[in-house]
């Protein structure tokens, strides 16, 4: 049996805690109960911090009662992708390669969350070393979509997205190297923010491709994303006033050529309906071009694989059998890239960055779908789009990887669902993260239509 359920937000929980309607301990216990009841079938977590989390929640409640309020995240249960260091715990990156690893200290982002009073409930499953978009290659087994166990929740931060959608955490921290926050958020009906490059520190995060890696939140609302961003970002990035504003008069560019060439019919219909709602709300939409968009995938492949291969070269030599075979093959391929082709890709990156900046000039953002297809079936190598079968990896990265290449901030917001109830996301892109969050907050209601998603009821 299914029915519409509104995902609880951090802002709502913070209000309820301060109104005395609930406590951090009760909220954390609810999350842990869902993990106990459902994670055997979803597999969102690699490690659950049951008693540790409850101790942190009780401490948060004591502090709040004593008058010390650390802000919106104080007492909020949050999960962490198991690619960020948490002191004293393994950072597995979902790989046997790191089975002996224990983190000596917290990643900077984790330390900032703890300082803000967040309750860390566990470490979430992912695609091995974040090198994929389905989580199927994980030393800990695949993550299953909470709405349909035969499908992937998207990745690589799939455990993070599944944990939030299923009610195992109010938000999660993930990483995004080609779309690994935005893809699972689109597939799971969540808000996912990839901040501008270098706005959020990557210290203590296992790298995939250092010049493409970003850290950001997966959560229920734009306001939640803003609250987390303001906690984990470096101070200079936290510019701009609080998240408020009107949709009327905002200008968005829609890059159709290339980005709409390979789009599932239901995704296309949901996106066009979103454009109509935005127009009705007074948003001005016009078409923009990214002239060299057809080179995006080639440039991305050369940057990502080369940088990943450099990081993994030693363990590819010393313990190749500890990688899942497909991940090993991808990494080994990167070792063959010619220096001139890597440098050519960096040259192409400059061209694309210039073209995205030009498209944003005089506009408040760009608008495009986040994910070209709904959540893909587990085990599928290809997915049918229109009349063609395309590799899952190519299709899922297609609309997101450009903004990892250029470093522009991007956020996905739910914009509808397929006939079978699988979520669809719309992506906004901006110049600065704080201003993008303001635009997204102003447009959230017309983009969504409603905040509800359909969850299975137990």
């Amino acid at each position, binding site marked *: 049996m299914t029915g519409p359920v509104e995902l609880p937000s951090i802002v709502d929980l913070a209000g309820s805690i301060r109104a005395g309607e609930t406590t951090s301990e009760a909220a954390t216990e609810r999350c842990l109960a869902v993990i106990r009841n459902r994670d055997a079938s979803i597999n969102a977590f690699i490690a659950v911090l049951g008693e540790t989390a409850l101790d942190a929640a009780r401490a948060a409640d004591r502090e709040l009662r004593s008058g010390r309020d650390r802000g919106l995240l104080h007492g909020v249960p949050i999960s962490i992708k198991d690619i960020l260091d948490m002191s004293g715990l393994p950072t597995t990156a979902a790989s046997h390669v790191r089975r002996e690893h224990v983190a000596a200290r917290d990643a900077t982002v984790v330390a900032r969350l703890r300082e803000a009073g967040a309750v860390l409930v566990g470490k979430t499953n992912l695609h091995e070393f974040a090198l994929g978009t389905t989580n199927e290659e994980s030393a800990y087994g695949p993550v299953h979509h909470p709405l349909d166990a035969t499908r992937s929740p998207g990745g690589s931060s799939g455990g993070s997205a599944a944990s939030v959608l299923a009610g195992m955490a109010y938000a999660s921290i993930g990483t995004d190297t080609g779309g690994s926050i935005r893809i699972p958020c689109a597939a799971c009906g969540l808000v996912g923010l990839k901040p501008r490059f270098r706005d959020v520190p990557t210290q203590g995060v296992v790298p995939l491709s250092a010049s493409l890696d970003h850290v950001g939140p997966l959560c229920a609302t734009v306001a939640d994303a803003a609250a987390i961003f303001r906690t984990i970002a470096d101070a200079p990035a936290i510019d701009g006033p609080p998240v408020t504003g009107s949709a009327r008069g905002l200008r968005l560019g829609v890059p159709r050529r290339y980005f709409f060439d390979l789009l599932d019919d239901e995704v296309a219909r949901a996106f066009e309906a979103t454009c109509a709602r935005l127009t009705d709300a007074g948003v001005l939409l016009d078409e923009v071009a990214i002239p060299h968009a057809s080179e995006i995938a080639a440039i991305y492949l050369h940057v990502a694989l080369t940088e990943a291969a450099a990081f993994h070269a030693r363990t590819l030599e010393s313990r190749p059998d500890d990688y899942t075979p497909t991940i090993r*093959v991808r990494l080994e*391929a990167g070792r063959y890239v*010619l220096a001139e*082709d890597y440098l050519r890709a960096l040259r192409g990156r400059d061209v694309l960055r210039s073209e995205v900046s030009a498209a944003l000039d005089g506009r408040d953002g760009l608008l495009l779908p986040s994910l070209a297809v709904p959540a893909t079936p587990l085990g599928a190598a290809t997915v049918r789009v229109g009349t063609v079968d395309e590799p899952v990896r190519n299709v899922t990265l297609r609309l997101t990887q450009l903004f990892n290449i250029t470093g522009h901030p991007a956020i996905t917001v739910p914009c509808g669902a397929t006939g079978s109830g699988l979520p669809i996301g719309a992506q906004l892109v901006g110049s600065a993260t704080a201003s993008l969050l303001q635009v997204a907050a102003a447009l959230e209601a017309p983009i969504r239509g409603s905040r509800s998603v359909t969850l299975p009821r137990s």
Partner: protein
Amino acid sequence: MTPEDWLESARADARHRGLPDLRPALEGLARAAGVMRAADWNDDASGASESAPAAPAPAG
């Protein structure tokens, strides 16, 4: 070295290393290299093509 020559050499090396499964990934890289090399923003030492300007990172 053309992408075709590179692919032949890389495939031979992968076979020599006992990694025949690399072939599809190498073929994908060769296609991608071909796409980049054909792009109109490539430098040309003869001066025959004009370079596209580099852009700074997004400002904020």
